[in-house]
């Protein structure tokens, strides 16, 4: 088990290999279908993004509402492939890591290798367990999207596995 401090440095990324179990500590941003669509459209139009994604790790998640006394509701990963259409543009903008579940397209993997990016898999459906490692949640942008808004999560020992490393090696079964 490797303990990884966020943000990711290029040295850390080089040291991560497909299949490594990791515990992530630090800050991640969240985003899923609707937020990706908006970010992608802004990039296409050459407009500034509401959130800086440079050097960030993005977690594909739409959390359930938090019960009183909880920082966040259950918050497991959503399927990553739905973000594939938008991902290379975000990686070209400096995004360094992604957390989701399931397979990625060849275009995404090629862009990961080009940009030195790592893709982590969290366990789909382990949402109540995962949410224990999320200590705070704050909305950064797109509040109107509800669960699909972009949040900043502070995480401590967030459990994940390196699914595809920056060399393009994958542990996912095809």
């Amino acid at each position, binding site marked *: 088990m490797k303990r990884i401090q966020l943000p990711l440095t290029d040295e850390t990324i080089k040291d991560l290999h497909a299949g490594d179990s990791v515990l992530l500590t630090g800050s991640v941003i969240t985003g899923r279908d609707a937020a990706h669509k908006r970010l992608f459209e802004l990039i296409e139009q050459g407009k500034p993004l509401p959130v800086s994604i440079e050097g960030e790790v993005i977690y594909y*998640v739409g959390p*359930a509402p938090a*019960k009183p006394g909880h920082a966040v509701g259950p918050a497991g990963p959503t*399927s990553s492939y739905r973000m594939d259409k938008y991902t290379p543009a975000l990686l070209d903008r400096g995004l360094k890591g992604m957390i989701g*579940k399931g397979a990625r397209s060849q275009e995404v993997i090629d862009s990961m290798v080009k940009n030195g990016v790592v893709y982590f898999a969290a366990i789909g459906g*382990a949402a109540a*367990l995962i949410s224990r490692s999320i200590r705070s949640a704050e909305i950064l942008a797109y509040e109107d999207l*509800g669960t699909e808004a972009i949040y900043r999560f502070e995480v401590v020992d967030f459990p994940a*596995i390196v699914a595809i490393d920056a060399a393009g090696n994958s542990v996912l*079964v095809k």
Partner: protein
Amino acid sequence: MDIRTIEAAEITAAVRQLFMDMNYYIGSDILHALEEAKETETSETGKSVLSQLLENHRIASSEEVPICQDTGMAVLFIEYGDHVVIENGSFEDAVQEGVRRAYIDGYLRKSVVDDPVFDRVNTKDNTPAILYTTIVKGNTIKILGGCKGFGSENMSAVRMLTPSAGLEGVKQFILDTVHYAGPNPCPPIVVGVGIGGTFEKAAMLAKKATLRPINTHHADQRYAELEDELLTAINRMGYGPAGLGGSCTALGVNIETFPTHIAGMPVAVNICCHAARHKEIEI
């Protein structure tokens, strides 16, 4: 049989509780299958994933929080007794209100958008729920509820096979669908299969099949054997828990069937994640 009156508010309260319960407490069929899979799983990563899923169920039930953040779209199969009269409201409104209250009061995620293509604005209460109602003899109402997450729903498919495709064609389509889904639908999955009827009937049967406990079999021995054979074939695919490799890709295969047309053999495959949430109540 005497006519029985039921207050609309009673229906609402029962449906509210049904959806909260199914989101916090996984059924014993799934829990048992996960425990068994943890013992037999050949991959160390797979074993670790299964342990974490079991731990997740322990946390969800003890803290009464949803098992998965995707608390799904609400689907209800209803057998409505013809001797029941609803007072102070309509049946359908009472059910929708129950779903609405469950998702708001129970801290469940609201995942429904009003228009599928153009607007996609969240309805903020997870309604409308999808109701399939049949009228039966009697003075009770049976409700089989499920909350269907879309990570696995998106991996589902319907194919209008024709009779010459035969048993082999049916098997091939089911296995191809699971293979295409690969690591995406949160394995170990539950595979619901509907065979027969019309285009939409097959899909509805497949959905109902995902809501049947996985420790049950089709009443016809031939289909029961097919369920077992398909389960074995799927578990040889190697996707494993969370798609990270292993011997447990599916927890169960449930088949539901219906008579069909002389020219057809529709097959629907509705894939469900390991958090196969379903519960039945009788009012």
